[in-house]
């Protein structure tokens, strides 16, 4: 079974579709909307997160950083990435030694089987409430094979699925996904193209073409015609 990078798995998620849901946030997004509520999910690979309020200033992290990103500074809460953040490779050694949990990895590599096992733990809640799982992001279609494997795994187990997408993905991929998911949460960022460009988007991944809003709306229409349930917002 394929694997991918998961940003987070959130249980008792009550605003991402019907019933009690588990939301699986897949890492990586083609957009970088300035209103994004978890911008740390935008980059595709694992990244180190820092929670200064948890830091006890023990300095162990600085001792293990292979790239000299972290400097040992005196006093609690001061072992922040003092310099050369661009040198951080996200190796995670600092997070591994941080007892206080001030450094944690955002994103981890997981197999689809592992993720499905995690999703399955809340089946009683989905069954009771008409809930299920929502794949969100980032943009879940940034990891299409992984997403397909997850959706297939859920379908085998009769778990209701929703895909929360911005629609910025190849049309054929979206149509393929539509065969495996019960519901699309189709996040139209902005109906006005000019405003869409203005407000939106600095591009996380420079090799991707700028989003064509007209195309996104067309894909939404097309998806709608396949009969899959589609909630736009």
């Amino acid at each position: 079974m394929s694997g991918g990078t998961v940003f987070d798995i959130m249980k008792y998620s009550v605003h991402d579709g019907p019933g009690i849901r588990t939301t699986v946030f897949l890492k990586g997004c083609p957009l970088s909307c300035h209103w994004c509520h978890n911008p740390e999910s935008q980059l595709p690979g694992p990244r180190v997160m820092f929670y200064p309020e948890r830091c006890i200033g023990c300095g162990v992290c600085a001792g293990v950083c292979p790239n000299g990103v972290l400097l040992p500074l005196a006093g609690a809460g001061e072992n922040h990435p003092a310099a050369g953040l661009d040198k951080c490779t996200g190796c995670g050694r600092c997070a591994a030694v941080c007892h206080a949990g001030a450094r944690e990895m955002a994103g981890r590599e997981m197999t689809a089987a592992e993720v499905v096992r995690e999703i399955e733990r809340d089946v009683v809640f989905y069954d009771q409430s008409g809930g299920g799982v929502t794949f969100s992001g980032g943009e879940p279609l940034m990891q299409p094979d992984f997403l397909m494997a997850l959706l297939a795994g859920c379908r085998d187990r009769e778990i209701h699925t929703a895909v929360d997408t911005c629609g910025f993905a190849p049309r054929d991929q979206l149509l393929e996904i539509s065969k495996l998911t019960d519901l699309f949460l189709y996040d139209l960022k902005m109906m006005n193209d000019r405003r869409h460009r203005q407000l939106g988007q600095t591009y996380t991944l420079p090799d991707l073409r700028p989003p064509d809003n007209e195309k996104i709306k067309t894909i939404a229409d097309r998806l709608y015609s396949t009969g899959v349930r589609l909630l736009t917002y």
Partner: protein
Amino acid sequence: MNQRVAKLRQQSLDTVPRITTERAELITDFYRSAGAHSVPVLRAMAFQHLMEKKAIYIGPGELIVGERGPEPKASPTYPELCCHSLQDLDILDSREKISFAVDHEAKRVYREQIIPFWQGRSMRDIIFSQMDDRWQAAYQAGVFTEFMEQRAPGHTVLGDKIYRLGMLDFIADIDAALAGLNYLDDPIAYDKREELRAMRICARAIITFAERHADLARAMAQAEPDPERKGELERISAVCLRVPAHAPSTFWEALQYYWFVHLGVITELNTWDAFNPGRLDQHLYPFYRRGIEVGSLTREQARELLQCFWIKFNNQPAPPKVGVTAEESGTYTDFANINSGGLRPDGADGVNEVTYLVLDVIDEMRLLQPSSNIQLSKKNPDRFLKRALRIVRQGWGQPSIFNADIIVQELVRQGKTVADARCGGASGCVEVGAFGKESYILTGYLNLVKILEITLHNGIDPCTGERLGIETGDPRSFSSFEDLLVAFKKQLQYFVDIKVQGNNIIERLYATRMPAPFLSLLIDDCIARGIDYNAGGARYDSTYIQGVGLGSLTDCMSAIRHHVFDQSNLTMEQLLAVLGQDFSGSEKVRQLLLNKTHRYGNDDDYADGIMQQLFDAYYDAVNGRPNTRGGVYRINLLPTTCHVYFGAVTGATPDGRKAGQPLSEGISPVQGADRRSPTAVISSAAKMDHLRTGGTLLNQKFTPQVLEGEDGIDKLAHLVRSYFKLDGHHIQFNVVSAATLRAAQAEPEKYRDLIVRVAGYSDYFCDLGRALQDEIIGRTEHRTF
């Protein structure tokens, strides 16, 4: 609520609790001149003396009448159980929380009359003098508490019989039982005769008490200029003449009958977990329906009467507690906990029109007392659950929610008939019982974490250096987690044995010295057996020891298993050294234990598997052992405020908890250790076999935003139903943000009416001790995402 109710409610809220010496003086007068009677008859005559002599109070505007003291919130004392010293009275008067005003006159009465007569003779004095050294040492160290050291056993709830039978009917039953005594073949026929005579005196006495109210109401009616009030007083007088002598015929009479009975029970003795009407909605429904059908009652009148009834409970603060009892149960709340919904005796959906009326009353009255809960069966409609959750959402912790279907299974497992089990429910905080037919006595909390601390020191209490337990081996010599578990189980058994031995003596002390003939009248089958409630007269007899700190204990064991045995991050030697210094200079180790341990409450099978092993150990140590009343011991898991007291006497622990900090409460995870979601907490908690307990308590805290809108209610309803599908026993909610609670700490005067859920009850946040306030703030707050 109408003006009458608003006024009575406000009066109840505004009145400061005070101590009245009325009962203490009457009981002392009685015993001074008491004749040579058997113990049960003496107790009955003492009750009669109180019922004949105590002041009668009928307040302006009241419809339901009768007070335990001479007026609302005047709390009597029970010197035959606990004789307060002058120092006690000073403490009660001056302590910051849960105080009682004590005036100079009261102190004089105590100094001149009460103390000289009762000192050395109260049950408290007798109990402490009868306990052996091992019991004393464990009690002093905070290994367990003792419920009966200043309050009487009495944990029970009334069934349906007062709605069918009057006291005169009970007297007829007693006379039949007396006539049937066989002095030739029955070796205890004499004891039965004395007990039955005592019950008969009590039945008469409560009729007299009601008649005195009838007389006063009639006299007040004659002097009353307002024709409307005059009519009400005449009606009160008529009601008090009919009940409790006869079975009630109206909604009003049914409520007034219950209230007289309630006053009788809480005046006879200071019983724990005060008595309550149990399934009030089902008991009242026939009277309600008949009243509506014949046009003698409107829904609004029924509501008003219920509201007046509610205020009566709030007028009775739990009588003053001192010493360890004040620590374990620091609240004015006396745990009368009214059940709604559930099942009917035939197993059908028990929700009716009165159920919704009761929920309206809970919502409008917003009083600490009575406490309220819903019994939720899979057969009950969602409308019922959602109506209750809309009250829960307001954030003051009521009603709590019980799994009616599982309670039936728990009771049947304990040997009750299916019909008796369906008439049962939950009371006190979360304790199950067969209402009207069971004596289920809670005897004290057991500090599970302290027992681990003692195990880790091979029987020594590190707080004092004293040997408290047995030698179960130096933990530094243990080669596996199993070694530790075996040692812990031995130590646990040792302390449970001490507690059970003490209990067995105390139960006999109450059976022989302090019977409760009035309570015995009310509980089946005391009359038929001719045996007192305190001596095994009830149809079912259970004795409980309440475990505290299961979440903390699990995390401690999980930390040791993971860091010492699995990963070798620490040696046992290092761990003990760090704990001995309360983590001083070892913050890194503390953070490791706190954050890198599998912890209960996250649906993590590593931690939850340990919880199951510990639950089994506790169950095996207690369940099924014989008590002295013909029944057996059982377990339940609830703390009241004891997790704070137990934490205060327990040193630093392997879960990263510093010395003196509170333990986890009920079966909830350690405060802040549950980091995943409410569904993960529920999945963890449901791995416990609730069916083998007599009650478990799960607290959850939400920020108000999560429960906004209809959608918020829907999803919370599904969460509750899911837990109950998994056989969970009980769940309750705090809906408040930590920010609000911190603001209330900073400026209490602005948050006087802020009510929160503590353990199995709600309380004013500002009435809680600082440690308990901090503990509630520290509980994980589930947010919306």
